[in-house]
């Protein structure tokens, strides 16, 4: 059941990111970006990274997507200015093909493609193995097989069970405040500089 949801969320992430980069209207594109981030956060929560998944929804949907929407509503965009049609669009297509093929070549040279990495295919093979052992010795329809089905339906995920267990956040805070403290200070300086830069850039100079 968890594997099924993880597959659905991964597929939804890919499809909504494709829709986000190909849609004409920027507001629709922002909506699909929000869908991408929510589905990626759901993916993280389902595989067990709870705190980062929830903070993804808080930071991206609550802050960054609202910032994008605010900027789009504030400036007056004519849709004919930012659309590129026909000849203008296909001019970039050879560059995109070259960079995409180079990227996939480099990645799959470093990491060879393995069918065990794809969860849907490994799910099919596992169910085939289960079915095979079921047919071969038929007295296996007993406590084992029933317990497998019951566990698949009722043992939903780790995030449901561990909702009051704060060990992940505890270890995160421990590492963030001990050996990662200097990075945290540098990060706060970077955020302060970002705030100052925004104020200075958008100040109206009269």
């Amino acid at each position, binding site marked *: 059941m968890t594997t099924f949801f993880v597959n659905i969320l991964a597929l939804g992430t890919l499809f909504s*990111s494709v829709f986000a980069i190909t849609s004409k209207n920027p507001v629709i594109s922002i909506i699909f970006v929000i869908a991408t981030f929510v589905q990626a956060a759901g*993916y993280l929560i389902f595989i067990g990274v709870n705190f980062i998944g929830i903070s993804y929804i808080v930071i991206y949907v609550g802050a960054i997507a609202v910032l994008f929407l605010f900027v789009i509503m504030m400036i007056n965009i004519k849709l004919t200015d*930012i659309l*590129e049609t026909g000849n203008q669009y296909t001019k970039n297509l050879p560059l995109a093909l070259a960079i995409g093929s180079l990227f996939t070549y480099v990645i799959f040279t470093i990491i060879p493609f393995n069918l065990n990495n794809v969860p849907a295919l490994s799910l099919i093979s596992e169910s085939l193995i289960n079915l095979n052992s079921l047919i071969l010795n038929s007295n296996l329809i007993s406590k084992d097989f029933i317990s497998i089905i019951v566990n698949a339906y009722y043992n939903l995920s780790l995030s449901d069970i561990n909702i009051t267990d704060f060990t992940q956040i505890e270890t995160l805070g421990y590492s963030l405040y001990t050996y990662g403290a200097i990075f945290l200070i540098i990060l706060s300086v970077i955020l302060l500089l970002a705030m100052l830069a925004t104020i200075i850039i958008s100040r109206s100079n009269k």
Partner: protein
Amino acid sequence: MNLSLFLFLIGILGFILNRKNIILMIIAIEIMLLAVTLLVLISSYSFDDNVGQTFSIYIISIAGAESVIGLSILVAYYRLRGTISLRT
């Protein structure tokens, strides 16, 4: 791991194919940062390590600062030129 690699590829293609729409270029950068963070998180979780979650917090904060500066540059550009089209 395949999910984050394909998401990064989608981000690169969105950055290249839309050379005129600057909002969509910033969105593509956000998608690429999401892919990198997913790769770091998934591999560190499968190695049962804690450093990946710490670094993902740093990456998320840098992504927030980057998108804020990009959008403020966009607003200043619109105020100077009256349009946000990159190609005249």
